[in-house]
């Protein structure tokens, strides 16, 4: 009987689908697979499913996922805490680049760059306190410059494109710039290597541009009543003081170099006038601070504006000198 049943069952093989359906289904499938290419995310999903399905036991899957998550978090945490020269430092750079990529707007980008700049400054401070290779320190300083420049550029774009309230970001960047300049000015004395000096000077030059952008931002923020006159002037005094100090140092360096040079062009510069201007700016700076302390903000702002004009004129004057020839 069994073989009879088997024979009968085997005859059911004659059951076949409707040929019209077979044809139409084939055509539909072929056209669908032609146009419906798998998206990247779908491929990833399917691959993950396939990979995981090979692990038979659900607890093993869960354990693997937990381990991966723990490993991922701990590695990224360690990478974030690493310093230049550490094994995980390249990982930290990658994480930072991803953070920048994930920023959704120029304002957010500026924020991220500024956060990186703050961390970089902390790194440099840590590195300076320990014995490290010169190239690691140089690399960190170079990156600090890049972060600050990127933060300022993003802020510029954000100001133009978004026109939104960017006070906090602008203030944060200003603080970073001021802190960087303060620290680098102090560090400059301790650094002996010429390479390090060059890099520091580059950073200081780059920060000067950012300072100017910050000044104009502060003015526009004050005009829009977004910050108080006191806050604006406080930042102004800090930045202009720093700019005055830098320009004085630059003038001194150039003058000492040009006096020992034979080039007539270099000595045509009226150094007496330059020094008179610097002295006048210093006097105005003291007056501006005095006026600020006496709550005479109008006078203080007027003095600071004059100092800025003097600094700009001196910079313009010394920019005519061929620096390479001097050095």
């Amino acid at each position, binding site marked *: *009987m*069994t073989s009879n*049943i*088997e024979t*009968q*069952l*085997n*005859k*059911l*093989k*004659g*059951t*076949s*689908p*409707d040929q019209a*359906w*077979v044809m139409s*289904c*084939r055509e*539909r*499938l*072929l056209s*669908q*697979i*032609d146009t419906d*290419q*798998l998206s990247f995310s*779908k*491929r990833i999903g*399917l*691959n993950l499913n*396939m990979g995981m399905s090979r692990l038979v036991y659900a607890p093993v899957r869960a354990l693997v996922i937990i381990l991966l998550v723990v490993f991922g978090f701990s590695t990224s945490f360690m990478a974030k805490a690493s310093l230049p020269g550490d094994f995980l430092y390249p990982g930290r750079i990658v994480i930072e680049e991803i953070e920048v990529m994930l920023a959704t707007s120029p304002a957010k980008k500026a924020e991220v760059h500024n956060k990186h700049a703050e961390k970089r400054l902390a790194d440099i401070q840590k590195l300076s306190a320990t014995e490290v290779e010169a190239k690691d320190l140089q690399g960190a300083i170079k990156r600090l410059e890049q972060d600050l420049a990127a933060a300022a550029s993003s802020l510029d774009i954000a100001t133009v494109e978004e026109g939104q309230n960017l006070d906090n970001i602008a203030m944060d960047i200003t603080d970073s710039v001021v802190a960087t300049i303060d620290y680098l000015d102090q560090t400059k004395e301790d650094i002996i290597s010429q390479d390090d000096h060059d890099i520091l000077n580059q950073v200081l030059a780059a920060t000067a541009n950012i300072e100017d952008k910050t000044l104009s931002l502060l003015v526009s923020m004050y005009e829009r009543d977004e910050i108080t006159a006191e806050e604006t002037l406080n930042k102004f005094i800090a930045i202009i003081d720093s700019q005055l100090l830098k320009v004085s140092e630059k003038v001194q360096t150039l003058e000492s170099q040009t006096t020992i040079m034979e080039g007539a062009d270099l000595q045509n510069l009226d150094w007496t006038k330059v020094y008179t201007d610097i002295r006048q700016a210093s006097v105005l700076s003291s007056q501006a601070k005095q006026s600020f302390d006496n709550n005479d903000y109008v006078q203080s702002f007027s003095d600071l504006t004059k100092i800025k004009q003097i600094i700009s004129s001196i910079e313009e004057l010394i920019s005519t000198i061929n620096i390479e020839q001097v050095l």
Partner: protein
Amino acid sequence: MSREELTDKILVIKARLGDKQAFASIYNKYVSKLYRFAYYKTSSKELAEDIVSQTFLKAWERIVVGGQIRSLQALLYKITRNLIIDYYRSKQSTEVSLEYDLGEKDEPRQELHANIDQDLIKQAVSSIENSDHKEIIILRYIEDLSIREIAKILDKSPGNVRIVCHRAITELKERLKDYR
């Protein structure tokens, strides 16, 4: 590796490389088998057609993803089987409909006597409630698959398939007694 399996592997590689004709060959080779499997599991022509169509789409996804496919036949039957399970799960009903559509006209009519026998067999197969038994009856006795091939599809050991196979045919015989 059998000749059939080797042919399948070549077709999969060609399809993966974008040869639509290779995928069409896979379709031609398996469409009737999968249809019968789905049809005897669901007792519905429309549902079987829908499930088979979805099976090939899912198979295409698996092929293009690029993972290893040990047995194309086993993969296709597994997808069909899972789609049927998903369907009944979503319907929140029993795994199979016990009603069998005797009015199906899609088979060539042969002799009246033979048809009566076949209808009884169909009804008996359809009335098997144990899912494993029914699948094994379809795969082993209708599709003529080997124990090893069935084991691959059902993810069971060949020994286990052999035992279930014996129980399934015994159950079918018992059911046929009632019909005769």
